[in-house]
């Protein structure tokens, strides 16, 4: 039976020619791959930067000959100077948070699979979609430019940290090296990124609301779709605030305004308003920058993790061969995390000088976000209960996600309390916390996704043996890197120090610093295996059938790789929920969403206690 909504309508015909097919493509699948490629390049840059940081921290006075040749200003005779280190800190954070964690999970996998999983031929606005990628790409070029155009004293870019606190970030070159042109480019890059991200968010939301196929009710959507949807809403509402803040910061830097710069400053021997390098400023509020930044910054971290949560739920169910435990609760938890995420930004600012009363409010709200996060964890473990687990590499990374999310998330209970933050703020327990959740759990979500969906995208499996080595070394490695950082923080080790040689109380931590660095070197090196696997499997990987994993959702019901309009002219009709595994009496241990033959009673609320 074909009715209006089911005869596929080619809203744009299949492209011809290399440029239209692979460069300026309107096809969400190509755009998704472009985002993933961008992230793969960005993460290489980001990881290299973190490697250099670890080298400086572990061997601060060592002469690294290669560095001395490559970075004459930042590492004269091979010893990295403090501004070089700080610019690594800044660029590592910026590149990883924006160009890796906010691209691949959402723009990459979301773009590729959201339309297919809801049974649509493409995103709602394919042209906007293409623009969103290329705008993001330009943003990446600009941030790389910031590395090379920071000025004669050149470091490796601006040095304000990825958080760019004013007035340090607003004063310009007078505040120190790395605060000149590189900083302007940093702001511009982020502003461009905001625009690209907003275009993407617009597409995701409209597509999900408007283009679900027949039978695909909201509560039959895979959890990946719920995660991408909520992430898009978060992006939609938080990125404009960053854009606003960035505009104000740029104006303070270039146009002499005083949004964030107060009066009466005396910087590098110069009083405000007495020198052309330092125009007169009055009345600005540095804390205003923090409010604007973190109002964006907190939802941003949920943008980074939610898609990984969605992928984990999806992949756990698939390889556990049973439904997600508590699908409804999972949906509510995603909403709760998204919603609460907008009300807790002040927990980054307890010590900032803001009102101590608001600190109390923010603190209590912050700990309440732990509740939906815990609910999700219980449900993941519940999904594994009574399962028949198939330990594919994708599954290993999904299980790893749960372990790492628990480890990283649980320390939020410490950091979220205002009293404890008196001792914890700006010490190493903070990067310990956020790296475990963002820098590892989120990445594991992406790894799981890529091992899972590679066979659908390219028709071949990623090599499982290499994959498993990749998993084991990375899983153990990241724990070795980030668990010690917690106790470093308890001792009181401050953040963003280019070396730890100046304080007696830090001396005892040196063995831990070394241990972390060696673990990092090993873990980062092993990621090369992953890159190798990607390329090798593209050509030599074992061929995969259309339903590579005996999974249930719509992407597995179409051919591999999916045709241009995803469903070869006939949009699917959905009869079941997304995770109908182990249905009693069904011929297989999985029932695809499109399977009209099998009946699953009471839309799948069996086993309801």
């Amino acid at each position, binding site marked *: 039976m074909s009715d209006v909504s089911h005869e596929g309508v080619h809203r744009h015909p299949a492209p011809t020619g290399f440029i239209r097919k692979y460069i300026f493509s309107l096809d969400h699948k190509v755009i998704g791959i472009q985002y993933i490629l961008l992230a793969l390049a960005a993460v290489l840059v980001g990881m290299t930067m973190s490697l250099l940081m670890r080298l400086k921290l572990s061997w601060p006075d060592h002469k690294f000959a290669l560095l001395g040749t490559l970075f004459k200003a930042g590492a004269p005779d091979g010893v990295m*100077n403090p*501004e070089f280190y700080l610019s690594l800190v800044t660029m590592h954070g910026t590149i990883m948070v924006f160009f890796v964690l906010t691209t691949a999970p959402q723009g990459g996998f979301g773009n590729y699979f959201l339309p297919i999983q809801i049974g649509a031929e493409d995103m709602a606005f394919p042209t906007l979609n293409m623009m969103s990628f290329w705008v993001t790409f330009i943003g990446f070029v600009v941030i790389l430019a910031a590395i090379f155009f920071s000025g004669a004293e050149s470091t490796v870019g601006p040095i*304000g940290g990825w958080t760019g*606190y004013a007035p340090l970030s607003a*004063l310009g070159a007078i*505040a*120190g*090296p790395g605060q000149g042109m590189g900083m302007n480019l940093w702001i511009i890059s982020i502003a461009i990124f905001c625009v690209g991200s907003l275009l993407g968010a617009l597409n995701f939301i409209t597509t999900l609301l408007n283009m679900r196929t027949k039978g695909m009710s909201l509560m039959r959507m895979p959890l990946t779709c719920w995660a991408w949807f909520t992430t898009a809403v978060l992006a939609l509402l938080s990125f404009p605030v960053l854009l606003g803040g960035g505009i104000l910061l740029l104006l303070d830097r270039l146009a002499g305004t005083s949004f964030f710069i107060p009066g*009466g*400053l*005396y910087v590098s021997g110069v009083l405000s308003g007495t020198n052309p390098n330092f125009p007169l400023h009055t009345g*600005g509020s540095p*804390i205003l920058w923090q409010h604007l930044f973190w109002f964006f910054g907190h939802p941003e971290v949920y943008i980074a993790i939610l898609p990984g949560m969605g992928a984990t739920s999806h992949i756990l169910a698939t390889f*556990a*061969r*049973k439904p*997600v435990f*508590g*699908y409804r609760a999972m949906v509510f938890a995603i909403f709760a995390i998204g919603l609460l995420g907008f009300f807790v930004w002040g927990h980054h600012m307890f010590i900032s000088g803001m009102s*101590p009363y608001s600190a109390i409010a923010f*603190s*209590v709200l912050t*700990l*309440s976000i*732990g509740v939906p996060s*815990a*609910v999700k*964890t219980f449900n993941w473990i*519940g999904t*594994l209960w*009574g*399962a*028949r*687990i198939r330990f594919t590499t994708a599954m*290993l990374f999904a299980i790893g996600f749960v372990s790492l999310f*628990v480890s990283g998330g649980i320390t939020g*209970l410490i950091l979220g*309390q*205002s*009293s*404890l933050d*008196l001792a914890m703020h*700006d010490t190493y327990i903070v990067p310990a916390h956020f790296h475990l959740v963002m820098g590892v759990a989120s990445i594991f979500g992406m790894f799981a996704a890529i091992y899972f969906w590679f066979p659908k995208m390219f028709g071949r499996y990623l090599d499982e043996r290499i994959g498993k080595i990749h998993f084991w070394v990375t*899983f153990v490695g990241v*724990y070795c890197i980030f*668990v010690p950082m917690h*106790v470093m923080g308890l*001792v009181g080790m*401050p*953040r*963003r*120090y280019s070396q730890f040689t*100046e*304080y007696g*109380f830090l001396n005892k931590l040196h063995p831990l610093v070394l241990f972390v660095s060696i673990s990092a070197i090993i873990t980062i090196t092993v990621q090369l295996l992953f890159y190798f696997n990607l390329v090798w499997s593209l050509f030599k990987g074992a061929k995969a059938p259309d339903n590579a994993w005996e999974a249930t959702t719509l992407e597995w019901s179409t051919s591999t790789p999916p045709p241009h309009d995803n469903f070869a002219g006939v949009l699917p009709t959905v009869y079941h929920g997304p995770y109908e*595994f*182990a249905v009693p009496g069904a011929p297989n241990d999985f029932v695809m969403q499109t399977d009209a033959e099998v009946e699953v009673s009471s839309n799948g609320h*069996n086993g*309801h*206690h």
Partner: protein
Amino acid sequence: MGRVLAVIIWIITALSVLMFVSKKWWFPAAISEHGPALDRQFLITILVVGISFAAAQIGLGWMVWKYRDTGKAGDRGTYTHGSNRLEVLWTVITAVVFITLAVMGQSVWAQLRLHDAPAGSYTVEVVAQQFQWNFHYPGKDNVFGHTDPKLIDDSALNYVGLDPGDPNAKDDAVTASLVVPVNRPVELRLRSKDVIHSFWVPPLRFKQDLVPGMEIKVHFTPTKVGKYELACAELCGQQHYKMRAFMLVLPDEELNAIRVMSQEQFQARMTELLAKYPTVID
């Protein structure tokens, strides 16, 4: 594979817990009045954190160990979409525990931040800059001399912009070390000349940002005599890593003697005291 994964997860869990429990790398001894309360709250929190962490990882490992696919034909997983009762149960329990922790976690904060320094506190003005700390003492008359940014001249060593024309300024001292009494409330008036810095003394369990354009008043009561390292805890530029100062907590006689000294004497006496007390680094 499932068993190996479970074991590795459990080993990681055990080692992580051990790292904390052994206290090999831990907070330094608390030297402030609110310190023990903060440490108690931390202990309660880390207990909840540790138990939750261990329980989740053990549970995860257990599932992964027990429920691996044995490949038996026709053997299927347990078909269930969940349990509303369980959802309510664990949501409520988690909420109660977390909110309780949250409420408890406000008390030290409220004590320190919602009340002004008690009357009669020993007051010091702290002015931070790239890359040093300046501590301004009111001297014998116990009145701070007037300061003005326009009068700041680093090359002339007038770091805080003290007004030479102000009679109250004559007996003031401005030095690079913080000198405070033991067992008396201390009020710090925090300012910054250029960018955001942060006052951080780990044994004190106390931290506060110094924000340009604001004067932020904070208070605490040190409880142990000694010389402690003061670190900057907010990125302030390339020498952020070496913006060190010392905080000297002195017994009453020594403190009362130095506080009435003017600049040169204060400086000299301070140098002696810095040499006298070993730096507490544990």
